[in-house]
């Protein structure tokens, strides 16, 4: 319990301590609204805290720098109570008065009483085991987008930690697990073109002699001023191949071969690369069904969460990639919007009770 304009108020429970959850928490805490964050992992920060800056000699607007304030503000904030390694067990009550049972890391249970709930459980990256034929986990030079994001964080002035001198040709495979009807993901994951094109530029900046090829279906908007993005990259010497590869195999000399259809030759070719990066897509979080059950939420056509009824009636809000693919900036904007709706509600209530 805490005060807002003199009224004792129940707080807000945020399920998930990733960038969306923490952005909302930061915003609410700034308005002195008590917040509880429950995260099932050991630390808050979700996936975004592990992403790296992709600047070359200039900023590429991956927006990672915007997240840094958030982590700092959320830790050691007197309005924010963080429970890591914790699970939500049940949720009872109604708007303005929810009682949520939480199992803490030490196994003890704790009931908290909140007015609003924000479900910000994020996403899980596409499981590359389903596409074993791309050799992820089998060949050491097949990486995925998340691997590279995390390795970018360890960049130094001269080197990127995952590139060694033997790498001369590098391929990005786009839409791995996205826009894929067989794999029950008929949607675009929205972020992969943006991160892969940025990563390519970062790698090119450090190692201009590495030849970079993208296998793509369509290049999506990258954000910001984008209309000349593709042309600029072609100017860098990047190759774009309109083709969906079918397999990655190890070559006899230890390199990798990407097997794909060459449209101009109208035949299947094997092209050699030294490293392959799989741009894996965004899938609903692994515990999406459990969370939907606890908070009585629905699904959209692709299995992401969707609210039932109007938010303002239930007081249970969704934020960020729990709702579908979103980039960092969109997730933050979405979380801020949710937080602001809640803040406005609190203030209206405070005015109604005559204290503000």
């Amino acid at each position, binding site marked *: 319990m805490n005060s807002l304009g003199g009224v004792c108020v129940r707080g807000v429970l945020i399920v998930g301590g990733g960038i969306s959850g923490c952005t909302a928490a930061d915003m609410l805490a700034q*308005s002195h609204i008590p917040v509880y964050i429950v995260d099932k992992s050991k630390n808050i920060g979700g996936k975004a805290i592990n*992403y*790296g*800056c992709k*600047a070359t*000699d*200039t*900023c590429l*607007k991956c*927006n*990672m*720098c*915007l*997240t*840094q*304030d958030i982590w*700092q503000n959320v830790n050691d904030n007197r309005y924010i109570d963080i429970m890591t390694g914790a699970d939500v067990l049940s949720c009872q009550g109604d708007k303005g008065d929810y009682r949520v049972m939480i199992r803490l890391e030490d196994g003890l249970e704790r009931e908290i009483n909140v007015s609003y709930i924000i479900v910000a459980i994020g996403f899980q990256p596409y499981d590359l085991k389903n596409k074993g034929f791309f050799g992820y986990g089998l060949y050491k030079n097949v990486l995925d987008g998340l691997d590279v994001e995390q390795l*970018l*964080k*360890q*960049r*130094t*002035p001269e080197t990127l930690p995952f590139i060694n001198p033997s790498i001369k040709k590098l391929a990005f495979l786009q839409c791995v697990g996205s*826009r894929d009807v067989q794999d029950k993901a*008929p*949607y*675009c994951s*929205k972020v992969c*073109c943006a991160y892969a094109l940025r990563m390519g530029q970062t790698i090119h900046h450090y190692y201009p002699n590495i030849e970079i090829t993208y296998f793509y279906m*369509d*290049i*999506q*908007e990258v*954000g*910001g*001023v*984008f*209309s*000349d*993005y*593709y*042309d600029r990259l072609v100017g860098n010497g990047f190759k774009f191949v*309109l083709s969906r590869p079918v397999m990655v195999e190890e070559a006899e000399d230890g390199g990798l071969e990407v097997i794909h259809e060459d*449209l*101009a030759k109208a035949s299947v070719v094997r092209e050699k690369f030294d490293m392959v990066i799989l741009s894996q897509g965004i899938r609903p979080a692994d515990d999406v069904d459990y969370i939907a059950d606890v908070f009585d939420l629905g699904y*959209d*056509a*692709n299995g992401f969460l969707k609210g039932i009824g109007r938010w303002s009636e239930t007081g249970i809000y969704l934020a960020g990639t729990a709702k*579908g*693919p979103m980039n960092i*900036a969109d997730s933050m*904007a*979405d979380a*801020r*919007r949710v937080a*602001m*709706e809640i*803040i*406005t509600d609190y*203030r209206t209530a405070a005015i109604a009770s005559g204290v503000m």
Partner: protein
Amino acid sequence: MQHRILIIGNGDDAAMAARAVVAVGMEALVIGEGAFPIADDRVTYKDGWTLKHIEGQIGAFEAVFDTSDGEQTETVSSIIAATGADMVPCSLMNSAGDKAVSFKDLPALLNAKEYTLPMAVVFIQDADVDDGQWVSAIGINLARQVRKMWGCDVYYLCRFIRGSHFEVENAYRMARAEGVVFIKYSKDSLAVMPAEGKTTVSFNDYTQEISIQADMVVMSDVLKPQTQTSSLTQKLGIGINHEGFFQYDNAYYPFTATNRRGVYVIGACKGPAGLNDVSGDAAYTALDIKIQLDELRPIADVIAEINLFKCSLCLTCLRFCPHGALHVSDDMPSMVVYDMACQGCGICGAVCPAEAINLADNGKALMKESSGQKRLKVYCCKNSAKKALDAINMVAQLPQGVELAEMPCSGSIKPEELVNDIYAGFQRILILACYSDACRHVNGNADMRRQMKALQDTLADMGIARDSIVVMDVAGPSSDDVLEKINSAYNAIGLEVAL
């Protein structure tokens, strides 16, 4: 208190902004040319008013308008620019003959009572620029309508389907199922030519040269900034990007808030990227405004202070301030700071030739003092280098001769401070600034670089090595990079001493 928000523009974007503003209980004053789509007693629409200039800050902007009755002044709490953009036909339309229409004009043809049914209709996207998602969304739906209503062959030529919104991806799938033929053409291979009552569209589809005889060609429009955009950015004191749309191309401005607190931009006036979720942006903006106005407080802990006796009204600070936070006092011959607008970057203090402006401690604070010999002094921007160092907690382990200072923006560095450092015995000064386009204060890093160049020249004349001052770009998430840059700057001094 009732907040009144000025909305500039009279199109759909402005209407969405007005709806969002009244939805959170504020009033809207809308200015534009021509009719306004919505009527609401909380929305005042002034047809024909144009903005002349604004004064003031969030909570109380004085906006001066040109009207048919002369000049009018209104006080508004906040401002939203939602002027939209111009849709212009793509350049191929000029050579395409009279069988070509633009996406914008097709609906009128579809609704017409009488027309000759075409046999083949070709849609073309991405002819001039790589079109955005909004173009794919409009084009695919038009193609489906044509296929359904006219039952003719429909070809859809594009370079990329921008289907990152699920509705577009879904429409794309449905269109293919309904018989629209999608073909991707390679860049620069497209030509559209009138020929014997038809139009020949030829292109390379990555496998071969193809040409289609079309009865009608439908081409996407290109979004261009409105002519008033650049003068409006100057009147409002906000950024413009290199394509001429509102908002700086800067990592800190992906949202609707601009560099001037209380001034927002939404919709197509931000360029194609502004079109992704206009209603969401409008709701977001209205809430953001309301929350700030209800409890208006400064955003910076420390703001600039002006010494009235030193200020000579040269207006240098006014030109350099990225946040429109300075103005000429009404009753004193001096500049004054808007307390709600100042973001404490210290750029004004660094550029003031009269030394009339300061932040407390000139915006600097020591993060680590050097113990023993003073060798390297590092200035860390608190938006990047400081965050990177805080994240790894390694400051204490840096060599003893290193002194670290934090600063609100690299633009806050005064040449005099560095000269003092050199006099104090530091052999080298390392400035860790943010990458270009990633400065929280727009151009603080670029201004600093210019100043440092001049300082290095002066030092060189005095016989002090240019590399006594080193500037490097860093980012908050790259801690190892920052540490390595500090260590290598330090070790380089060691080498010189050894020689």
